[in-house]
């Protein structure tokens, strides 16, 4: 049918709809357009869509996607002590999880030891407490680091935890160039959305480029950063803002690395991304597709990357924690299944599925099992993983992919005008945009413009949920005792020397800090001691909030 004929048909259809709508009004707050036709994508050439494994990667980064092997089913876990978390990791591996993902407690994420007064009440709560190499050895006990791939959600002190991982591998007899995994290492979104920053942006960017450089030579299979939109979305952004702000952060990291003397193709292939799988399935699929196209263009046109790998946006995904409800928690199983479907149709490389009870507490083993089974059911039973990019060609999904891409470019251009992501964060621009979206979401829920089942509609009287996981307060005490015992046993002169050496290295901007941190870690200097030295030299970031 020619476009003219389609337009004539559409006009006829619209006229008929007017009569219907006058008698049966449509629900409020729907997308403006009720129907999509070839006219909505008439300007989209197939070059923009392309083929899997080929530029611009709209349809996926691998040529065969899930027909060869499914995405990595990677469950984020960690709580209490290293021994307790080690048990959970081995349980997950036995249950068919194909990658590890370590959650650290907040003191660890902010570079404090468990015995620091600021850590009181927080030790082992949202993740595992790691004070030194001794804890890391327990965490990976009987787990072959030559075989498993490990993702670590660690940012400000990422260099220290990576060094500990390398040191544990050494002890297992596994060479650094065999290690596979990811550190999150994305400090910019910490300032903008997640909050576990330590140092100001400039030294933080130096640490990140030091890691890029060190790993390109010594740990070549390691993903040196996971540039994260997940937390930006959790903080309340829209889908377009999620990918736009994250890609703007990615641009800033590339610029910093190039400024430090690296060549784009030497590190860009090890950059990875982290998206949120939110509630609106089709919007999410379009978001994944648009993000790959935007990044490919950024790498090719802006940074003149030549290696295909540099242009591929490889992504880990987690289902949206903020969309879990404390009310009727079993409903969350269904939400997570739909979010999983979106991530899979969007073409993710790995996925964590949240558990039904996470709006209430850390998940129990049973809840984690259901979440993992959700992935396995989508993979093996739903058919969604059987053909590549199954929603391509849908008038709506292609039009939405174009729309999200256009909105993302608009934000990226705006951030360029401000002076890049670092400047946009320092000026509070990105934070304010996210806050405004979060507030609008909340107001839409409260006015009923947005329905959340069990929260503002279909509520019931409920008994308080039972059997939630609780981390006992004694965990903190025991962890401090272990730390004290370790400190009494180690070679304290060697620790002191390694910290003095690290301090000197911090003061010399041209020095790569990784080898110095690795030396300190090997002699059991603690995370708090190492970060303490860096705090002395680099200072700490202070946030300014505009409500």
């Amino acid at each position: 049918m020619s476009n003219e004929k389609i337009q004539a048909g559409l006009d006829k259809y619209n006229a008929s709809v007017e009569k219907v709508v006058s008698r049966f009004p449509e629900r409020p707050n729907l997308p403006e357009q009720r129907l999509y036709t070839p006219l909505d994508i008439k300007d989209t050439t197939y070059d923009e869509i392309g083929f899997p494994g080929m530029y611009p990667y709209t349809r996926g980064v691998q040529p065969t996607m899930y027909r060869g092997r499914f995405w990595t089913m990677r469950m984020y876990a960690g709580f209490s002590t290293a021994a307790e978390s080690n048990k959970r990791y081995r349980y997950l591996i036995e249950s068919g999880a194909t990658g590890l993902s370590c959650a650290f407690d907040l003191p660890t994420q902010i570079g404090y030891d468990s015995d620091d007064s600021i850590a009181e009440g927080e030790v082992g709560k949202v993740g595992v407490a790691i004070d030194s190499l001794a804890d890391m050895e327990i965490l990976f006990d009987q787990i072959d680091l030559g075989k498993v791939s490990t993702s670590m959600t660690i940012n400000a002190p990422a260099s220290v935890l990576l060094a500990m991982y390398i040191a544990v591998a050494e002890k297992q007899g596994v060479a650094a160039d065999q290690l596979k995994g990811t550190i999150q290492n994305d400090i910019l979104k910490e300032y903008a959305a997640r909050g576990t920053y330590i140092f100001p942006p400039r030294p933080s960017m130096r640490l990140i480029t030091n890691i890029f450089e060190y790993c390109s030579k010594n740990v070549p299979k390691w993903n040196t950063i996971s540039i994260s939109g997940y937390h930006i979305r959790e903080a309340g952004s829209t889908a377009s803002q999620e990918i736009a702000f994250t890609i703007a952060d990615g641009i800033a990291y590339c610029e910093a690395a190039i400024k430090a003397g690296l060549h784009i193709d030497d590190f860009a292939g090890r950059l990875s991304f982290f998206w949120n799988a939110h509630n609106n399935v089709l919007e999410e699929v379009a978001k994944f597709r648009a993000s790959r196209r935007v990044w490919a263009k950024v790498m090719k046109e802006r940074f003149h990357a030549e290696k295909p790998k540099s242009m591929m946006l490889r992504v880990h995904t987690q289902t949206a924690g903020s969309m879990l409800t404390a009310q009727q928690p079993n409903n969350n199983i269904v939400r997570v299944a739909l979010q999983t479907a979106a991530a899979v149709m969007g073409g993710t490389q790995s996925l964590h599925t949240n558990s039904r009870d996470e709006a209430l507490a850390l998940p129990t083993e049973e809840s984690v099992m259901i979440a993992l089974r959700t992935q396995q059911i989508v993979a093996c039973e739903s058919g969604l993983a059987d053909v590549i990019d199954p929603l391509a060609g849908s008038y709506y999904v292609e039009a939405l992919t174009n729309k999200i891409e256009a909105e993302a470019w608009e934000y990226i251009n705006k951030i360029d005008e401000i002076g890049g992501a670092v400047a946009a964060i320092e000026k509070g621009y990105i934070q304010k945009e996210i806050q405004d979206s979060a507030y609008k979401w909340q107001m839409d829920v409260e006015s009923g413009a947005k329905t959340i089942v069990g929260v503002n509609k279909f509520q019931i009287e409920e008994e308080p949920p039972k059997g939630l996981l609780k981390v006992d307060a004694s965990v903190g005490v025991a962890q401090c005792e272990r730390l004290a015992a370790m400190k009494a046993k180690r070679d304290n002169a060697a620790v002191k020397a390694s910290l003095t050496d690290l301090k000197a290295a911090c003061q010399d901007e041209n020095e790569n800090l990784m080898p110095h941190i690795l030396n300190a870690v090997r002699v059991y200097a603690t995370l708090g001691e190492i970060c303490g030295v860096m705090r002395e030299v680099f200072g700490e970031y202070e946030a300014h909030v505009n409500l």
Partner: protein
Amino acid sequence: MEKRIRVLVAKPGLDGHDRGAKVVARALRDAGFEVVYTGLRQTPEQIAEAALQEDVNVIAMSILSGAHPHLFPKVVDLVRKNGMDDVLIIGGGVIPETDIPALKEAGVSEVFTPGTPTGSIVDFIKANVK
């Protein structure tokens, strides 16, 4: 003219999840209160001091890390020690139902869990502030 209600929105502990705190702060401001937000990673001592300095009528704390059993009561103690007996102290975040009785016992007047409309927080403050 009636004096406006002053609220300190505070984030004790180390968790960086302040979406809720910021949304509540803005909703309270839109409801006509004067709102001060502390920012992240405040120690109980800093919160008690800020409450005193800002001469607030209400302290609204948010924690999503699970550190509430330790930190909420500590803030209450310090605030009362400063002689601020009339200050209304409330909390919110990822807080299991079973923890709430102990928090109330410790002097937290009300705990708001995920899914609470901001309007109920406004209403509670108006009804209970001294």
